[in-house]
């Protein structure tokens, strides 16, 4: 299987900036995403993977709470979800609902104009 390289834009803004509170938006999205039928939980995303790797390298304990990752680059927004699903619905049906929920939440949570929204949904497992 082949994947086309994605265009990756550097993260130039984080935290609270221009009406965008990253932690608050992330918390809101986490609640919405885990409330979608068929989503059984979140898996470690990039931050979680890095926290685990850093703990391994530095021989320390460390972990990141499981959450939907969200960041802003200029007017564009990036969202990453690493999710566990059950088999109650087809995967694509759940993914479409995730996209819809995220779009609504972002429109409500962000002040000012929103550029492109890059949503990266990763289905880690699907339990029976």
């Amino acid at each position, binding site marked *: *299987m*082949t*994947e*086309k*390289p*994605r265009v*990756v834009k*550097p*993260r130039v803004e*984080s935290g609270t900036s221009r009406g965008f509170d990253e932690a608050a938006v992330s918390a809101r999205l986490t609640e919405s995403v885990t409330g979608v039928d068929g989503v059984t939980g979140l898996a470690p995303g*990039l*931050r979680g*993977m*890095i*926290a685990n*790797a*850093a703990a*391994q*390298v*530095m021989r320390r304990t*460390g972990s990141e709470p499981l959450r939907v990752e969200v960041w802003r680059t200029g007017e564009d927004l990036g969202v990453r979800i690493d999710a566990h699903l059950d*088999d109650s619905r*087809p*995967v*694509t*049906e759940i*993914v*479409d609902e995730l*996209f819809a929920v995220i779009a609504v939440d972002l429109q409500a949570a962000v002040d000012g104009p929103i550029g492109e929204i890059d*949503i*990266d*949904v*990763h*289905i*880690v*497992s*699907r339990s029976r």
Partner: protein
Amino acid sequence: MSDESVNATDAHLRGIIDEYMEAFEPDPAESIGLRERILQIVREDAVLAPATKLTTERGNPFRISTAEVRGIIREAVDAVPGIRARSVNLTPAGEPEGSAVEVALTVMMSVGTAFVSAAEDVRRSVAGALIAQVGIPALRIDVTLEDVFVDEEAGDD
């Protein structure tokens, strides 16, 4: 996540690592090459769990653990009497790419099974499972018979 997608997200990963390290304030002695080692571990973990990039009918892209999709296909193959799955390979296909898949299977067949009709059953079973469980159609399902086995359970009946 495939190795390719990890390459594509290196810049993003490095950004998060930098952010993470600021919070950690490691000892100077520890920090030599620390970022590169963390990146390497994350990349290695990602390679161990490859993902397939698919797209919903509405055009929403997503990645799904390749092992999960293979498991769905394998179960559909094994549901056909006299047939057992061996290798399962899937390739994103369709327009846009990932809106469908192409599947290549190798199977074992029990002695006395008519392969041509069994292969059709396999195709129907796999196509049905992919639509019902993943929501993605199969454009092509190639079935290659690799081996024959004696079905002792069937012989006992």
